């Protein structure tokens, strides 16, 4: 599974039911998924669990879309690209 698909899947599993089906790469966390600060925290922690990384909250301060998360992970944590 590509990292894009994994991130979309992780977010869909860690967002309130009403928004699960709305998660795509272009979804804006706040505007489209209604993610507040606790929801963002939930997503960050789920990504940490899934990829075995420790994400600096500062990295996520400027995140807008799911695509931004993928790009951020690829840049900051390149090792996850090598995972199967």
């Amino acid at each position, binding site marked *: 599974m590509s990292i894009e698909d994994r991130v979309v899947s992780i977010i869909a599993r860690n967002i309130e039911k009403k928004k699960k089906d709305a998660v795509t790469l272009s979804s804006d966390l706040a505007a489209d998924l209604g993610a507040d600060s*606790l929801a963002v925290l939930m997503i960050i922690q789920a990504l940490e669990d899934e990829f075995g990384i420790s994400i600096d909250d500062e990295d996520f301060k400027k995140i807008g879309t799911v695509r931004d998360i993928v790009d951020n992970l690829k840049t900051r944590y390149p090792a996850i690209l090598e995972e199967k």
Partner: protein
Amino acid sequence: MNPADFYRRFELDDSIVRETGFNPYYCSIQSGLSDPVRVDGRDFVDLASNNYLGLAADPRVICAVAEAVERYGASMCGTPIATGCHELYRNLERKLAAFLGLEDAVILPSAYQANNAVFGVVAGKEDVILIDHFAHSSLVQGARAAGCRIRPFLHNDPDHLRSILGKLKDVRQAFVVTESVFSTEGSIAPFRDIIEMCIEYRAIPIIDDSHGIGVIGMRGGGVLDHFDIAGFDGVYTASLGKALANSGGVIAGRKVLIDHLRYYCPHLIYSTAVTPGTLEGVGAVLGIIETEFDRIGARMRENRDRIRHALTSAGFAVIPGDAPINAIEAGNSIRTIRLAKAFFEELILTTPFIHPSVPLDDGRLRLIAGAHLSEQSLRTVLEAIPRIARQYFAAAG
């Protein structure tokens, strides 16, 4: 920075008020919570207050408060650790503990303070707090103030909670925090499942029963009564200002913990104690619940059902929930405030919740019909709902 720039930071965004022509907040009420209530010189049906059992203006409660004020004055002018510890204070703590089936209880000036206070005492940076995503601001702020790791879990989702509990490592103590009744929607947390999970993972449950005490359970005893939970081994908090119709908050649980709070909880030690009138008022309400909950609770639930039926028949989406709350899914902030305005124009007070109290574009209008509402008031509401619906849906296109 000059003073003008400083104060400019605090200017309110009144765009919603300007667009809707209505500000539902800080309405000045000119009566007590009798039925009807008086606002701007007009009589309104109160579906906004948390006066679930309708006891705020009950003559027996008024009498208990008045007698306490006459006998002991307005205030003890001291914190509970000093002159605020009137014998009435200890009496009510014991009464509340017995009512809840817990070992001991301590009374604070508000439930917000109780929720803020508890985390700073019980949790440290080596701990982790798992908290329902939609938990009340007082719980979230309290948890954040404790300075430990916070792990939110999906709202009322035990499977998600379990998945997080199963991944915890290197934690001294985990706490699982939720509310019994989520007041913006009327849902009841799956607390039995949560308790069982806490036992399995050795986590401590912390439950805010503010909208449950006096409301749910066979005898109105709140969440522990509702789920028939004996020997609760966690921390319990609740408001004394909703169904209990007075003011203040309570933290209850094991005696060893409550005794510790009495000496190490700054929110308690440094706040002027709840007044004698309030203490006796709560005591009077507990007495009424113990003898009359069957009748009053049934009336409260019947009022909810009649209003829910009218709302759904008129086309409103009402969030399913077992608590005596009707929460209409109203959409974005503008639509939510407009709906509140439509009820207001029919002389009905409601409570709108808009972002950030609820998720973006997921506004709710809450209606709580107290057990004391007259048949005439209920008819006013039931007859108005179809008119409001026509206006609301026509405006939505």
